[in-house]
């Protein structure tokens, strides 16, 4: 840290200052400010342009072309989009994505938020358990998928079936990943297991930020823990939970790894989400234009969900 000079600045220096470390007063700037800015930003503009801006524009462009494998591209206008919306597989994909996204968000945020509220009553005694739940944050979705394959195995070798038999619900035991509905449920459980860390972290921070005086007042008035949770802590930790809901929605909407690993979209494409459908069409069937159109639909969905967040960030961008 450089020592702070205590001498008074020359008159006029403060007036010219806009909070920007522009050229020092009485010194000739050897480089205009925008040139310095360009220098510092060059790597960011290059890498960001190459791997974000260019691909977004190019995906949009490709979505209006028919490109199959190495064949010659043909401009088809909105044909890819029209085909998508008359393709029963894609329509099923939209439905699956909706159920998956909403399901994962409800399960993960409900569990994460509830645990955060409970932990607030005994932060120290529960810290080890909190860490056990939060640990899934460090485990990749792909690994989570492999971990849960073992649990959903058919027959007695799967832990879930084994547990159901043990508690006398053997009728419910089934090859979980083999049926269309049960595979989607399995996918939601796995994704929620893996996604619960963020809602827990964000809600817990939000609960901890509630002023002690409010909680003490409620305690003095004889409020029971559950009443306190419901009437005071839930509304006051809503900001953190709202961020958690948004981030979980966003990441489940874009899911790929976990679908690829756990079900690969199966059985019979019943658990394909839009993010997986675009991969299948473009990277295994080489229908690049068709896959790009599906990607644009996914992008529109993502933008719809994120509109409030984008508006907020744009407003705050000073």
């Amino acid at each position, binding site marked *: *840290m*450089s020592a*702070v*000079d205590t001498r008074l600045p020359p008159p006029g220096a403060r007036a010219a*200052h806009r*909070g920007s*470390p*522009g050229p*020092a007063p009485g010194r000739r700037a050897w480089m205009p400010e*925008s040139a*310095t800015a360009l*220098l*510092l930003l060059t*790597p*960011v*503009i290059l890498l*960001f*342009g190459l*791997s*974000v801006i*260019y*691909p*977004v524009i190019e*995906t949009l462009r490709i979505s209006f072309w028919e490109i199959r494998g190495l064949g010659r591209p043909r401009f088809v206008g909105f044909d890819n989009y029209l085909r998508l919306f008359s393709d029963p597989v894609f329509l099923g994909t939209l439905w699956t994505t909706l159920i998956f996204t909403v399901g994962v968000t409800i399960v993960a945020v409900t569990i994460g938020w509830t645990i955060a509220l409970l932990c607030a009553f005994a932060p120290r*005694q*529960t810290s*080890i*358990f909190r*860490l*056990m739940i*939060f640990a*899934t944050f*460090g485990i*990749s*979705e*792909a*690994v989570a998928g*492999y*971990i849960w*394959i*073992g649990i959903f195995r058919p027959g007695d*070798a799967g832990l879930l079936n084994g547990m159901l038999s043990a508690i006398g619900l053997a009728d419910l035991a089934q090859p979980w990943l083999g049926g269309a509905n049960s595979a989607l449920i399995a996918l939601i459980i796995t994704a929620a297991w893996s996604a619960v860390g963020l809602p827990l*972290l*964000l809600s817990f*921070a939000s609960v901890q930020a509630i002023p*002690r005086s409010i909680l003490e007042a409620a*305690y003095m008035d004889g409020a029971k*823990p559950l009443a306190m949770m419901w009437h005071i802590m839930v509304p006051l930790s809503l900001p953190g939970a709202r961020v958690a809901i948004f981030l979980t929605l966003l990441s489940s909407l874009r899911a*790929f790894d976990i679908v*690829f*690993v756990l079900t690969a979209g199966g059985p019979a494409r019943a658990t394909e989400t839009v993010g997986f459908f675009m991969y299948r069409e473009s*990277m295994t069937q080489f229908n690049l234009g068709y*896959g790009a159109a599906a*990607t644009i639909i*996914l*992008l529109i969905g993502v933008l719809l969900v*994120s509109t409030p*967040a984008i508006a907020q960030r*744009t407003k705050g*961008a000073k």
Partner: protein
Amino acid sequence: MTGRAPKWIIIVVGFVGCLWIVPIIGIVATSLQTTDSIARGWWHFGENTFSLQAWRTVWQTYPLAGSLWVSAKITLAATILTMVTAPAAAYTFHYLRFPLRRLWLIIIINAFVLPQQVVIIPLFQLWRDVGLLDNMGAVIIPFVGLSYAWAVFLVKSFLEDFPKELIEAARIDGCGPIRTFTQVVLPNLISPIAACGILQFLWCWNTLLLPMLFLRSDISLTVLLARIAGTYDPNLDQQAVAAIVTAVIPLCIFLLFQKQFAAGNRVSSGGKE
């Protein structure tokens, strides 16, 4: 919190916590048992036989060490590049004035909503045309490019609370913008830069889609895991080994720095002075 915590709360949280690590215990147990035992169910600890066979097989049959090295190289390169360039960008956006500044900023910080799927078709074509497929650069470039969306925002929101007096003093002392950055601002940015590094490390190490598409011969651990699982049930023990090897390093990094996660969450209150 006020008063004594009711016991049932600790019991409920403890139960959920234990439930949450059952799958992790399961994968470790699976990796250490014989195929017959796994078929019976890994939790029959009394009757099952333990063996290190799966570990030996995976080590001998698959390029585990090679993939570990590839994952390490890709992840470290992408993490360091982000840690070096994102703070410079955040500083520039926050303090310097230049044309189209706000437009660039809005585009970059809002790009965090983009799904990875948007980049794969164009980059696949581009890397194929310039011969970058199967090169680690094909993965590192989008890893770094995509990270700016959240990394620049994270560092910049830390700068919101950075004391203006320091910047002013440096300027009066005759520092240009670059010296102000390297000597005044940068030494105070350790915590947001570390947060960026940890998040970027976890994401790069853990992701599957981009390395799976852009790497063929030198593959990362997640891709190797997908390959080992390419054939179904009979090698569940080997999948377990690969899953453990893939998860262990990010999990250690995570456990080591989990305190900073809780702190980094309150990023905007981070001013040191």
